[in-house]
């Protein structure tokens, strides 16, 4: 066994009566990528926050590079050579990369001097670890993948030998994630230690050397990644056998329930978000919309469900036709037989300061079943909520608990229960399992399949490709507001969809492949410059495509 980069022994941490970490021990070998996996609320983030000095452990010892030490705050952690890349980036959007990296480490009176000194150092780091970003780019012009690199650079600039990444791939496309993993391997080769916190089993298998599994605040296993598999890890995480693959019979689609025709949407700031989208969803099938987040799925969802007024195009739900001049809102859509599980349960699906029972009628509060002449019928609301919570196994089973006090998975179950219990003709569901733990994911997936088998139409929007692949019968891929293509789930593979998600049509790729066998295809000029991390590069005009070599692979871009 090589030297230990980090050793935690007997860490305990309580928040009030809640035990977040219970006698946790962890050994991370130097120069390895170590995965920490567990469900939401298993205590991974708390543990890392203790290591990074945000919290103090109630008891237990920390030693870094074989030296026992007290980490009181983030400064101590940085001094000890620990760097952290947060799930939500801590960057100033309007600053350049250089300014962001220097922020907090300026020396002397003149900012200019410290910037100049840092610029050299930063360029060296960029080269050494293949983390090219362009130090003068302004953060908000960079795609997320590159912003993440800036975070990594920031940590390295502060002299980190141990890098903690908290759920780093949540915001990335599969391709960007792959690239991140290449960067991480590079870091490992350079002798850095990486701790990767995630709940995605695939990533653990793909990149880590060792993996530690946490469950309910306890460390349940330390394993060598090579000696384990996804099923074993999932079982350790949840504490029981979990079906990772969704079992489902072939779909029996009937007549179209939802038809979307030439839907167009421009947002308040004038950005054309959805461009002429048409498709339909038939009864008894699940149509999945895949795409990297921010490619118009949210806006499409908002327009279909009446959150945003329809601007152009029309919808047909069963026999109802909805045109922009009808100004149909979400209540109208519900009346037409649509149920909607929104992407963001905290902001949209629930009023988190309301109790569970008040939330159980959100959107249906005008239903005569819940109302008397003046006052609402409390008993009817109670029984609806009680029934939903029992059926969907919401824990704790407390009708009067505020929604914000349920865990993410249980909040989602509350929303799903409310919408599915109404037995709608059409279910529109966005990110059904975002931030939901594996046990609840399995449950929610089964409910969605059950809806389909009962002959309902389901429209599923998710940025989790795995989820789309395992649930959908047909898959539509969105890129830059357009539907790039449709794939039958039975014949789909992750690679094809990944290409569509990056905006590359199948035909373009086939054309390129015939010319340059084995090459990858990039989307266009913008994605080319983005891909190579520099902006405003002029590739000249007159040529139709550019071929280049990067990361040991041949790439083809249309320009």
């Amino acid at each position, binding site marked *: 066994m090589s030297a230990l980069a980090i050793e935690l022994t007997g860490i305990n941490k309580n928040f009030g009566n809640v035990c977040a970490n219970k006698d946790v021990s962890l050994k991370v070998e130097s120069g390895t990528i170590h995965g920490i996996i567990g469900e939401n609320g298993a205590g991974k983030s708390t543990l890392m926050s203790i290591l990074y000095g945000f919290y103090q452990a109630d008891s237990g010892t920390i030693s870094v590079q074989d030296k026992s030490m007290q980490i009181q705050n983030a400064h101590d952690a940085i001094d000890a050579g620990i760097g952290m890349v947060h799930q939500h980036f801590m960057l100033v959007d309007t600053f350049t990369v250089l300014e962001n990296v220097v922020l907090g480490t300026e020396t002397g009176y003149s900012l200019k001097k410290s910037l100049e000194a840092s610029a050299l150092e930063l360029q060296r780091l960029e080269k050494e670890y293949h983390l090219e970003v362009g130090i003068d780019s302004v953060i908000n012009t960079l795609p997320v993948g590159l912003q993440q690199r800036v975070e990594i650079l920031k940590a390295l600039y502060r002299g980190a030998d141990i890098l903690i990444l908290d759920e780093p791939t949540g915001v990335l496309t599969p391709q960007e994630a792959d690239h991140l993993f290449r960067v991480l391997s590079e870091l490992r080769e350079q002798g850095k230690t990486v701790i990767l916190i995630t709940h995605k089993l695939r990533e653990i298998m793909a990149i880590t050397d060792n993996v530690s599994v946490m469950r309910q605040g306890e460390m349940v296993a330390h394993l060598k990644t090579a000696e384990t598999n996804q099923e074993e890890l999932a079982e350790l995480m949840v504490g029981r056998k979990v079906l990772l693959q969704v079992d489902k019979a072939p779909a029996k689609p009937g007549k179209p329930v939802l038809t979307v025709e030439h839907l167009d949407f421009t947002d308040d700031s004038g950005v054309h978000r959805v461009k002429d989208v048409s498709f339909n969803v038939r009864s008894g099938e699940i149509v999945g919309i895949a795409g990297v987040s921010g490619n118009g799925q949210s806006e499409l969802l908002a327009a279909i469900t009446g959150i945003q007024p329809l601007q152009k195009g029309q919808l047909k739900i069963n026999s109802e036709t909805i045109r922009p001049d009808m100004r149909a809102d979400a*209540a109208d859509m519900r009346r037409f037989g649509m149920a*909607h599980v929104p992407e963001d349960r905290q902001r949209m699906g629930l009023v988190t300061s309301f109790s569970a029972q008040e939330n159980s009628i959100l959107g249906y509060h*005008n239903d005569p079943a819940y109302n008397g002449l003046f006052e609402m019928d409390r008993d009817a609301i109670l029984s609806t909520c009680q029934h939903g919570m029992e059926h969907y196994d919401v824990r704790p089973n407390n009708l009067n608990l505020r929604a914000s006090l349920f865990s993410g998975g249980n909040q989602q179950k509350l929303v799903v229960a409310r919408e599915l219990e109404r037995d709608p003709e059409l279910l529109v569901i966005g990110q059904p399992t975002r931030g939901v733990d594996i046990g609840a994911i399995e449950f929610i997936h089964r409910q969605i399949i059950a809806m389909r088998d009962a002959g309902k139409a389901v429209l599923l929007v998710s940025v989790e490709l795995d989820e789309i692949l395992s649930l959908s019968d047909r898959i539509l891929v969105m890129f830059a507001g357009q539907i790039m293509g449709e794939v039958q789930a039975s014949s789909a593979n992750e690679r094809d969809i990944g290409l569509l998600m990056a905006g590359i049509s199948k035909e373009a790729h086939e054309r390129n492949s015939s010319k340059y066998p084995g090459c990858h295809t990039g989307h266009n000029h913008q994605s080319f410059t983005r891909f190579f991390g520099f902006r405003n590069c002029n590739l000249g005009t007159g040529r139709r495509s550019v071929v280049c070599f990067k990361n040991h692979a041949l790439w083809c871009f249309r320009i």
Partner: protein
Amino acid sequence: MLYGAFGYDEGLGYTLYYTTNFIFTGLAFAVGFHCGLFNIGAEGQAYIGGLGVGLVCLWLESWPLWLVFPLAILASIVLGGLWGAIPGYLKAKRGSHEVVTTIMFNFIASVVMVNLLSHVLKPPQEMSPESREFSEGVWVPQMHEIFEWFGIEITQTPLNGTFFFALICLFLVWRFIWYTRWGYELRTVGTNETASVYAGISVSKNIIIAMVIGGGLAGFVGINEIMGSSHRLMLNFQAGIGFTGIAVSLIGRNHPLGILLAALLFGILYQGGAELSFEVQAIDRHMVVLIQGLVILFAGALENLFRPQIEQFVKRLAT
């Protein structure tokens, strides 16, 4: 101070009389607050609502009280509500911030009233800018009169039947906000606008409704002041009550029961303070205001200071 407020029945009468006003403006603020609005226009809404009350009383002097009273209520709802509805509309449809618009409407109300009182409503031979006194038939019975019906004698104070109406309003607002679907919509809009759009609840409709209800409630100050006590329309009868309502509502945690208690506290401060500066020469009016300020500060600030202890105490009682 406490003696001044409670010690003798005249003091108590004044205390409850002030309390009545604060209940109305406190509720006016609370209803807006539950809809996510910061309605600081209760002042103007009370003023204009009072105008409505005054006009009804002047026009329908000869009608019996049981007819005039509901009409006066209606008039104060319509005018006070209108005064709330305009900023509400501007907020809902134009996005103008209600703090700015309602405070502007306070000024507009004040100018409108000065004009009306000094040019239109003032009897020609009078010097002071007030309307003539209403005929006794439309006065809300004073508390001492009500008690006389039951054969109990108490000192005459401005306290009048409106106090009971205020208590009814407290109860109705409580039921409205927490037990009806309209209250449910209002609170949804107030706590989470995105969720209300998701639920198909119209944000702008509810903002306007909340402002109308708030304006109407503020307008009831006019019933207490104009119809119950001064029996004529005059300048600045609402002086400061609207603004105090904000403090009343906030200290009362925007809950009707809390508002009742907070309104009582402010009633005590007003009456007791007046008594104090009257009785004790060394304490002048400014000192009283200072004392009131300190009480408000501590009542507001201590809420969070003692909260953990009180919560634990309640928990211990429960187990």
